[in-house]
């Protein structure tokens, strides 16, 4: 097996005295889509935050062999990680195009940035229509598209998505996942996705992990995870 793109080994994370992650081991290969499932409060969001250095973390997080623990967030994201936070986190008082330009902050290739902006407008035509509107005035689905497009503007090797379907209508969620699938296939952008909609996420992911009270309790290919009885009862409801 080649060296994974992202490797978490024995990761502990805590908010103050409250330990949320208790020794997580997790890998994401080059171009691989991995889904992280779990109940509310299990530590899914914290896992993503630990990767980005946004929470006090012990253990090891390596991106293509480079240690990330202890580094500042801005340094980590410049190594090729894009984090699309939960609740989207778009800049409401900036317009759509400015949001995309912020996403390309670490890049110096002006022409490439312009080309990418047009490219994501092509993928998400709604954003093109609203390019000079303030992001804060858009619908939840549009903000989600913007957050993902903004994340991709950095040309990441690894995209971290935190609950991309949160608050979106079913049909929009399906469209969004179809887009993500295309992006993964064409760009070979690796993805680590935290998702409530386990069924949908597993149909698109290569592998999955289940996290419970800060520990990984199950991992395997998407089919293996889907086939596990405990998993089915807990998250798929049948």
């Amino acid at each position: 097996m080649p060296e994974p793109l992202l490797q978490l080994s024995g990761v502990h994370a805590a908010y103050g005295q409250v330990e949320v992650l208790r020794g997580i081991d997790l890998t994401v290969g080059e171009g691989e889509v991995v889904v992280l499932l779990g109940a509310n409060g299990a530590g899914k969001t914290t896992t993503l935050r630990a990767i980005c250095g946004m929470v006090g973390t012990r253990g090891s997080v390596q991106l293509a062999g480079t240690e990330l623990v202890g580094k500042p967030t801005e340094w980590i994201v410049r190594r090729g990680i894009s984090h699309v936070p939960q609740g989207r986190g778009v800049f409401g008082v900036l317009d759509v195009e400015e949001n995309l330009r912020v996403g390309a902050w670490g890049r110096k290739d002006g022409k490439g940035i312009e080309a990418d902006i047009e490219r994501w407008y092509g993928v998400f035509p709604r954003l093109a229509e609203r390019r000079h509107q303030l992001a804060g005035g858009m619908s939840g689905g549009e903000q989600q598209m913007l957050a993902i497009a903004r994340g991709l503007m950095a040309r990441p090797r690894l995209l971290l998505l935190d609950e991309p379907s949160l608050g979106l209508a079913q049909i929009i969620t399906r469209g969004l996942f179809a887009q993500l699938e295309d992006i993964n296939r064409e760009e070979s952008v690796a993805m680590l996705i935290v998702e409530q909609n386990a069924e949908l996420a597993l149909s698109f992911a290569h592998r999955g992990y289940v996290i419970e009270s800060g520990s990984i309790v199950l991992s395997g290919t998407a089919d293996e995870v889907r086939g596990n009885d405990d998993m089915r009862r807990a998250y798929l409801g049948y």
Partner: protein
Amino acid sequence: MSPNIDNPAYLLQLVTSGLTNGALYALVALAVVLVYKTTSHINLAQGEMATLGAFAVFELGRHGVPVWIAIGIALVLSFLFGAGLERGLIRPLEKRGVFPVILATLALFLIINALVAIFWGTQPVAAPRPFPSGIEDKFDILTGPPPFFITHVALGILAVLVALLVGLWLLLEKTKLGLGYRAVAANREAAEVMGIPVGRMFMFGWGIAAALGTLAAGLVAETAGTLDFNSMAAILIFGLAAATLGGFDSVPGAAVGGLALGLVMAVVPGVFTFIKGDLSLVIALIVVLVVLLVRPQGLFGTKTLERV
């Protein structure tokens, strides 16, 4: 009512002096807003730092440096001082909460005020004069009687405010640095995740604010003719009121708030003479209170809303 109420020259004079004073409040308000937007702190020492900057101009002038060059040097020094203060004092304190920061800026207010008095004494000194300020340096508009004129100083102050607003707008809206600043102001954590060096944006805001303050203090001294260690004490109050009026996180709001405050403080006692000029501060604060009752976020401010 003033007996001069039907005299256009009198009214124009009130408006001009109101706008000129208002421009000074607007400059201080801008400084307060630029600090507040990114770091969410109110720098109570903003006025005293400005006084220090104006004394730097004075000191350079005393050593024969031409006034505009002296102002340029003082602006650069102020920028560095403001940025350094953010990095060296405010950011370490910030981890301990908002109150230590407020207290630190209050302490700075007192320390700088005392240091200026120690170095340059408590007696007023002659202000540096960037604009021609002789008795004849004015544009006559109405020959009168009574005449209406605009002094070169008043025109200069308004020109500086307009130039600054245009410059700030270009800087914030049209440059990558400005985009980063606005992103940090909009959502600090999201900006960090985008790889924006958040700390440098904080320093940038504090630096620009300090430079703006120095410019304001220079112009305050120019209008008054003298400069002393307490020159900016009252102006800071008006600047804070102007920022509150316009909305604490709005650059255009600071400008409009300052000008509106200046106008109200000049025109209301000028027209209703039973209100003495001494009461203009009270009038100004009443205006601020009324606006805040109707629009708590100020005229141009954004409501804070958190989406989770």
